[in-house]
């Protein structure tokens, strides 16, 4: 039996069942299919992992499903590839994915689009698994675009609201920009290597004879793709808007899985980046800048999901920082820990929103810890984890990222470390700000809302507990070492070799500093924060306006495009020049027709004269040229 194919196809079956039959067969059926098949996929993945472990540390499972298209002796296979990196990603996807499916049965209980929702979610899993299991970049691209589609559908799930539909569209199109880069990289690789199988690409770049293509160019192009999917500057604009979808979707797609596809891609193709220092540098710089700027924006957000969204962008930036400095395993490690705590946070936020009947503004929350203690507890654990408080999961991965940012011989530098640490500090600060304002400060809820507050059902809280537990203990699994046979750990600069432990303390200190600052500012509520905002109004406005990137794109890209299309292409080109000249010719012919009709005066003598003109003309012509 083709195990990997089965893993991929299980969610697809779920999608088809739910999509085609779901509405007729009722919610129970939908829930069983929708949750059962991902869980089956998870179990199948476990089996695959066992097989893999038995085969050795750098072994891989390979399954060719069929040949998609062939050209002469070359061709594209639909093949699945399973090694330790894939295993980690697949486990996260199916595992966290299954949990979120279960959570959704509670969260979406009353939604009329219940079947549609689960169909989409299964579809997403299908594409995500295709993405990570695909052996070739082409199959990966299928998943790559597919998750974009699923994301589009899910963001716009409540499509009656034009803003939400628009957010879906924005996500898709922004992703498409990145995909264009992905495609360019793919084309380049195919031309140079004649293959797009990722293992073969890595091998080709490791070979003594370098491929006839610049690794940096390929690296940058593929990274453009990654920026789109993983919401890095300058293509990060879609992710915060993507929070328009149902909250579990945000947890699954926009925090735990899809957005890490970019990280996965770079890690998977580390063979290219290892030989492309310039590209790696670009990755690191973009990553750290994203981490920092997203963190600053998160400072002033008031929508609970927006805060988490920017935090996601920021964390993804840190992952790319790790990739940029060659610490691929560490980046995946952060993907892994981040999946737990960010999913927990989002689902917790979902629980809060659920409890408050849809309220998302943290300024109108407060004091919830007493009312929904389970949610609060799990949320707090996850917050601590993301802030990097030891010994929770986030601490381990983040610490290692910062360490390599400073010390890696593959492009580490002090500047990267400083910005990364600053981002980390800000993360700690805004996360605890969130925690304070949401749960701990005195209640600022309206009376109606307060009356309504209730703890979520077990299907939701149970998931939260599992995820919180994983956030707490996940860090003890030394993932980078597990992956080392595949993803090398970069050498550390000699001068810093002995300071690793020192920097652990620095990192802890940074996290605690953030905690302390947040506590100082928000322990009593909003007042101090607002005062601070009032002192720096311009800065606050810039941060609140997200650096006006959206507006910039609107003004620089979209409007000119529209203007050029409308006025220049349509007005000037099509209507005036092309059609205009054609209409002109037609009018000319009509006028000529009128003129010729007027020659036909009805005067007999004129007709004779015309004939004589003809005869004389012919005679003269023949005589002249004879």
């Amino acid at each position, binding site marked *: 039996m083709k195990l990997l194919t089965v893993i991929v196809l299980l969610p697809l079956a779920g999608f088809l069942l739910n999509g085609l039959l779901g509405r007729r067969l009722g919610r129970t059926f939908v829930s069983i299919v929708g949750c059962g098949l991902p869980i089956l996929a998870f179990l199948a993945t476990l089996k695959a992992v066992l097989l893999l472990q038995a085969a050795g540390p750098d072994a891989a499972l390979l399954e060719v499903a069929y040949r998609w298209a062939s050209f002469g002796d070359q061709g594209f296979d639909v093949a699945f590839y399973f090694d330790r990196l894939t295993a980690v990603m697949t486990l996260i996807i199916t595992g966290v994915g299954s949990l979120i499916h279960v959570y959704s049965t509670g969260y979406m209980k009353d939604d009329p689009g219940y079947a549609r929702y689960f169909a989409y979610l299964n579809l997403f899993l299908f594409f995500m698994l295709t993405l990570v299991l695909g052996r070739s970049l082409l199959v990966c691209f299928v998943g790559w675009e597919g998750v974009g589609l699923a994301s589009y559908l899910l963001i716009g799930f409540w499509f009656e609201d034009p803003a939400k539909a628009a957010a879906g569209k924005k996500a898709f199109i922004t992703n498409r920009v990145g995909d264009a880069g992905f495609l360019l990289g793919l084309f380049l690789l195919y031309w140079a290597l004649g293959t797009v199988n990722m293992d073969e690409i890595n091998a080709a770049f490791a070979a003594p004879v370098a491929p006839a293509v610049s690794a940096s160019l390929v690296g940058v192009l593929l990274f453009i793709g990654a920026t789109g999917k993983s919401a890095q500057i300058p293509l990060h604009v879609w992710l915060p808007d993507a929070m328009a979808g149902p909250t579990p979707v945000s947890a699954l797609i926009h925090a735990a899985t899809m957005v890490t596809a970019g990280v996965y891609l770079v890690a998977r193709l580390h063979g290219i980046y290892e030989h492309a220092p310039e590209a790696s540098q670009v990755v690191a710089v973009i990553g750290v800048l994203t981490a920092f700027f997203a963190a600053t924006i998160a400072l002033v957000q008031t929508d609970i999901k927006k805060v988490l969204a920017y935090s996601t962008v920021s964390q993804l930036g840190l992952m790319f920082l790790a990739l940029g400095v060659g610490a691929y395993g560490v980046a995946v490690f952060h993907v892994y820990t981040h999946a737990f705590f960010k999913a927990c946070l989002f689902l917790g936020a979902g629980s809060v929103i659920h409890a408050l009947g849809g309220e998302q503004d943290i300024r109108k929350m407060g004091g919830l810890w007493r009312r929904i203690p389970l949610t609060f507890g799990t949320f707090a654990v996850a917050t601590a984890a993301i802030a990097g408080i030891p010994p929770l999961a986030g601490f381990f991965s983040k610490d290692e990222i910062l360490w390599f940012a400073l010390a890696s011989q593959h492009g580490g530098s002090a500047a990267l470390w400083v910005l990364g640490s600053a981002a980390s500090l800000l993360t700690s600060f805004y996360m605890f700000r969130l925690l304070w304002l949401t749960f701990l400060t005195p209640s600022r809820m309206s009376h109606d809302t307060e009356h309504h507050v209730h703890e979520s059902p077990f299907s939701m809280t149970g998931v939260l507990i599992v995820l919180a537990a994983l956030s707490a203990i996940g860090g003890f699994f030394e993932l980078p070492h597990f992956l080392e046979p595949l993803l090398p750990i970069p050498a550390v600069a000699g001068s810093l070799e002995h300071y690793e432990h020192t920097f652990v303390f620095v990192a802890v200190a940074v996290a605690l500093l953030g905690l302390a600052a947040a506590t100082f500012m928000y322990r009593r509520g909003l007042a101090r924060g607002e005062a601070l905002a009032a002192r720096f109004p311009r800065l606050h406005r810039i941060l609140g306006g997200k650096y006006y990137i959206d507006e910039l794109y609107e003004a620089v890209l979209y409007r000119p495009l529209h203007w050029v299309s409308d006025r220049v292409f349509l007005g000037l080109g099509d209507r005036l020049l092309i059609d205009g000249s054609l209409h002109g010719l037609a009018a000319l012919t009509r006028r000529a027709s009128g003129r010729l*009709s*007027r020659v*036909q*005066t*009805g*005067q*007999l*003598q004129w007709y*004779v*004269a015309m004939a*004589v003109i003809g005869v004389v003309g012919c005679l003269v012509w023949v005589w002249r040229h004879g």
Partner: protein
Amino acid sequence: MADTQLLLGLSFVLFALGLVGVMVRRNALVMLMCMELMLNAVILALVTFSLETATLSGAVLVFLIFVVAAAEIAIAIPIVLQLSRQRSSLDVEGYDRLQG
């Protein structure tokens, strides 16, 4: 005797005069007479060439032209008569209802 070229020249001039007459004279009957003049010019040319080439066929064609000229007039005159009756005018310039 006579100069071929001169006779030929006369023929061309008469032909042109006939054609000019068709173009410039407004009276339909005059117009028809001018056409006869053109035919006469052709006859002159044919006779001249018949003599020059010492063959008979030119002169034979002249006889055919006589017949055709008579037939043409036989058809033309009734047409003109009918037109003059319809329009109560022989002015060819007035015959311009069909145009465009």
